[in-house]
């Protein structure tokens, strides 16, 4: 069945979201069109505002609505320890665990020649810049425990070690192939406490 232009455009835009197939997109579209107008308007407004206000923190690269982000601005966080992750969702996962008092650096991806992602495409230059003032004592590499995450960790370790900063890798207490965002707090805590220095 084909729908009027505006409807099919809405379905098309919804179907571009991750995890949404065409059937779900239709369901969402018809929900939005049959609910009171405020529902759709509030959603549209929330999306627009979030998109306008949220950007990358100039220090750590995490998504934020203020500069620098809440973690980077927090006096109580230990600026000497930086935990490097692939994705903003990984920051959320580690923050839930509360045991970590350092700060973050978000790469926005991992090395993946198949996906056309090289070092230039990742948020790496600003990480190296953060290490130059000599205040950082340890960088924890918390990229995913899969081949791309491991390659990225190795690349960063080779880049950072000559600067004289200790580089550690999360202990593989995480199940094989598991991503940080799915790890529960206990395994995550163990992985952070059991981290090892890379040589």
């Amino acid at each position, binding site marked *: 069945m084909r729908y009027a232009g505006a409807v099919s455009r809405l379905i098309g835009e919804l179907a571009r979201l991750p995890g949404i*197939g065409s059937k779900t997109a239709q369901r969402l579209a018809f929900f939005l069109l049959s609910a009171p107008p405020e529902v759709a308007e509030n959603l549209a407004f929330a999306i627009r505002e979030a998109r306008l206000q949220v950007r990358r923190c100039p220090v750590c690269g995490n998504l934020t609505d203020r500069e620098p982000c809440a973690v980077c601005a927090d006096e109580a966080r230990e600026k000497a320890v930086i935990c490097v992750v692939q994705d903003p969702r990984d920051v959320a996962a580690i923050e839930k665990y509360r045991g970590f008092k350092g700060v973050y650096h978000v790469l926005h991806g991992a*090395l*993946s*020649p*198949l996906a056309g992602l*090289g*070092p230039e495409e990742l948020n790496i230059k600003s990480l190296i810049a953060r290490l130059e003032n000599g205040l950082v004592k340890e960088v924890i590499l918390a990229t995913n425990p*899969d*081949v*791309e995450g*491991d*390659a990225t960790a*190795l*690349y960063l370790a*080779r880049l950072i070690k000559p600067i004289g900063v200790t580089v550690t890798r999360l202990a593989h207490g995480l199940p*094989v*192939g598991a991503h940080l965002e799915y790890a529960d707090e206990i395994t995550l805590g163990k992985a952070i406490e059991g981290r090892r220095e890379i040589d």
Partner: protein
Amino acid sequence: MYLKEVRINDFRNYNNLRVQPHRELNFITGPNARGKTNFLESIFFAGLGRTFRGHDRDIIKWDANRASVQAFFYLADCTVEVKAEIASEGKKKILINGADNGRQDMPGCFGIVLFKPDDLQIIKGSPGLRRDFIDNDLGVIEPMYRNTLNKYRRVLAHRNNLLRVGGDMCGENIEIWNEQLYLYGAQVLSLRIRLLKKIYPLVKKAYSEISGAGEELGMRYLSTVKLSNSADAEQITKDFTAEGKAREREELYKKQTIIGPHRDDLVFYLNGKDVRQFGSQGQIRSVVLALKTAQMRLFYQDTGEEPILLLDDVLMELDEARQHYLMDMISGQIQTFITSSTGKEKFSGLQGKIYLVDGFGMKEV
């Protein structure tokens, strides 16, 4: 182990089928292209979580959007229920006794041994077919094999991509992938050597049973990596690393990874002569039959359970003597599913069930 019951939904040309096979022999007959192989494929899918022909998605009935097979295996003195499903986007779900095992293939250690006509190609066909035999048919008995192989393949794909694209930074970026290539490659090699060492005496024995005395079967793993006579993964990592470094310039020039388990081969000899070049049709059949026999015995040796045997259109292709050998071996021990469009009369006197497949379903006759 054996299959007590299988329920099939929207799988190939079956809409809804429920079969309680015989504990020993199941002979499935009917005209061509009506669903005999499809039925064997459903058992294979429940046991191993994948198909043996084409893409997994192809098993979904053309007018449906998911296929599912529910199988009740009797194993280690209890019944294990496996539910394997695939949806049209390609997403698979495998439940064992109702629990998600979090894996998309190899649900467990369900021993399914399949023997199909094109297995004769294993001996003379391309090296890839022999690697597939090791990776798929033997690999199931090593719990870490599939995972390690997948990691190796992924690293290899990334590395080959870098080599293909080239550029000034190529050499430097390759470095980052080398470590994992050598590590996982060495693990794959070490596991392959272990598997082949286990199966070698079994293949030798089976071959002499099949062909009688006088012919000695030999088997050699030919690696593109020079190995220093050790199956130890750490030693192989060193060997692979040393040789990889030495060949890197050549790889940059050829724009691909030229050594590693993805390029290796397995060669068979009879009285010292390469079967690929000198083997007769009959000898090749015997070697393949010996391989399949050994595969079954290896599964038993490793798990204490007999596997289930699927013979797709091969039994009638073998001569009387080899048919007898096979039937003697399975008799009373191994649950077997045999498909063939002819030869029904051979089985009417034996312990077992005979099914007729007519394109709409499968009926016991």
